[in-house]
């Protein structure tokens, strides 16, 4: 039996054989569950891993591009500064009149440390949809990196995406974020060490990942949607992520949970053998509806309850350099 690649434990580890369910390729992959830190990990990374990211993979779709009129962009930037803690009156008024978009939650705890000129890096950004949104909010120093895109992208508005691994990135960044990309990377510890090098002193690394020590994992097991074999190479636990962070020179400053109804919807349909790309008609109110409206609402409430109990199946880890 092989050892855990995070904590090294070799005793009592269990093997699991989940199926590829996004496209329904009907293949199985072997995963090890560490009996100590709980981390789920693929035992052998497929040679043809890129085949599991076909062109229709969701994060490569061409992102929406809107040009804002200069005056509007200026007001937006003021509002963003207010969200980030700047006391300017115009911005504060605008901030009061609008609800902060979801992506500001990730910056809330950076209040006072991050400004519109802060260097922000999105690793595993796909075609860069989030960076383009941040650009419209007024951020000026945005870079993306993704090894699976076809070639470098330059949107001409300051947003650039490099087809480069972390080790080939230069410079340092005040805020480095990985939105559901860390679990796709073959070497968790090596990746974190590489990230440690590019997070500026006093900066923050945000890892948003699925977590294996969660209600949905316990309930759905192999059919847990976020397992996503073989693309998710590591499904961390709170414990294994803390161990990995410590081993690569980070402290974990905060963990928050942001799971949603999709953990129920997707997993319930995997139980029935419905692949991810076929799922839409089975949603509540659609032609093949597998759920009632009440269930649909309840799933969202249940996700919020689980998040409050730190038992949702996705989490945000905020790491700071030691």
């Amino acid at each position, binding site marked *: 039996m092989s050892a855990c690649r995070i904590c090294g434990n070799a005793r009592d580890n*269990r*093997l*699991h*054989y989940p199926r590829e369910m996004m496209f329904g390729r009907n293949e199985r992959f072997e995963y090890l569950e560490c009996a100590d830190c709980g981390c789920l990990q693929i035992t052998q990374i497929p040679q043809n891993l890129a085949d599991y990211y076909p062109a229709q993979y969701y994060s490569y779709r061409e992102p929406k591009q809107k040009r804002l009129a200069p005056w509007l962009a200026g007001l937006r930037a003021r509002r963003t500064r207010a969200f980030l803690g700047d006391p300017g009156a115009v911005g504060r008024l605008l901030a009061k009149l609008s609800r902060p978009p979801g992506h500001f939650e990730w910056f809330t705890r950076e209040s006072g440390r991050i400004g519109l000129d802060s260097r922000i890096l999105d690793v595993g950004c796909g075609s860069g949809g989030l960076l383009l949104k941040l650009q419209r909010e007024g951020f000026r120093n945005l870079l993306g990196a993704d090894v699976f895109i076809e070639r470098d992208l330059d949107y001409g508005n300051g947003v650039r995406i490099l087809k480069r691994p972390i080790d080939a990135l230069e410079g340092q960044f005040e805020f480095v974020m990985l939105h559901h990309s860390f679990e796709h990377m073959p070497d968790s510890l090596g990746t974190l060490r590489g990230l440690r090098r590019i997070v500026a002193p006093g900066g923050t690394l945000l890892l948003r990942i699925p977590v294996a020590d969660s209600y949905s994992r*316990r*309930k759905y*097991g*192999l*059919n847990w949607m976020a397992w996503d074999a073989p693309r998710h190479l590591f499904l961390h636990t709170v414990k294994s992520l803390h161990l990995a962070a410590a081993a690569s020179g980070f402290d974990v400053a905060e963990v928050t949970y942001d799971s949603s109804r999709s953990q*129920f919807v997707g997993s*319930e349909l995997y*139980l*029935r*053998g419905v692949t991810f790309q076929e799922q839409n008609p089975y949603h509540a109110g659609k032609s093949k509806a*597998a759920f009632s409206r*009440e*269930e649909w609402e*309840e*799933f969202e409430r*249940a996700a919020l309850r689980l998040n409050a109990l730190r038992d949702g199946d996705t989490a945000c880890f905020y790491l700071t350099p030691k």
Partner: protein
Amino acid sequence: MNACRVCGNARGNRIHRAREMMYGWRERFDYLECADCGCVQLVAPPEDMARFYPADYYAYEPPRAKPVEGLAARLRCARSTSYLGRGGIIGGLLARASKRPQYFDWLDGLGLGLDSRILDVGCGAGRLLLRMRRDGFARVSGIDPFIERDLEYASGVVVRKGGIDALSGEYDLIMLHHSFEHMTEPRAAMQALAALLAPSGHLLVRLPVAGGHAWRKYGANWVGLDAPRHVFLHTTRSMALLAEQAGLELARTFYDSGSRQFSGSEMFLRDIPLCEGERRKDLFALGEIDAFENRARDLNAMRDGDCAGFYLRRAAR
């Protein structure tokens, strides 16, 4: 290692040892939990299984069988038609004036009428069928392998002694209320049931399901195992596989677990047989059963209760 008898998986399956605890005979039985489809199954069903269904088994209590005739019968028909979502003013008024029997919930959305052909498989003495007959359903029948002999009630309801193989004909609704888990060959049973289904007919299978909160919490002491009478404790996954093998597909699912998943399992943890524990009043503090009931409702809403109902229909081509 044993292979799963539903999906064939032989890797990583685990064995759980459960005891006969309805009567408290405490004989031990091995159950295999499939690491793939999650189905929990009795490894070796006893040769003398009939022994575990003694004459006082709850499903055989002879039901009250008073037929209704004349005007009363006609009024009941009108009321039932209204409960089925159709009918006229009188039926509507009667329906509003009385409490809708729970079983109508199971019939919702299936397009049934009082003349629909309805079969109850594993019906015991046929209590539900007699109620339905009194409410006006004209073509209800049942079958059960463990009753003493064929039963013919004055109202015309016939319950045959036998297995699914003994059945023929075509049905608009075939219901299995906590009987499918007792069958030793679920794959063959599902195929036989599929063959009895009218083209737009439905199969309703209500049963305890493995993998839910109560199974995770209580394991071999989960009351739903009911060793050795429950031979297969299915999951949504294993039901979907059986359906597929029989040319059927899952339509809707509902969860209807109750406080028993807690009260019964807690009895087993304390080594108290179910038939004794259900008579005792001293096992749970005031309010505990209510709390169990509330928790069961929450679990049902999250599809995590220990009992579910699956509607199956012919798979769309």
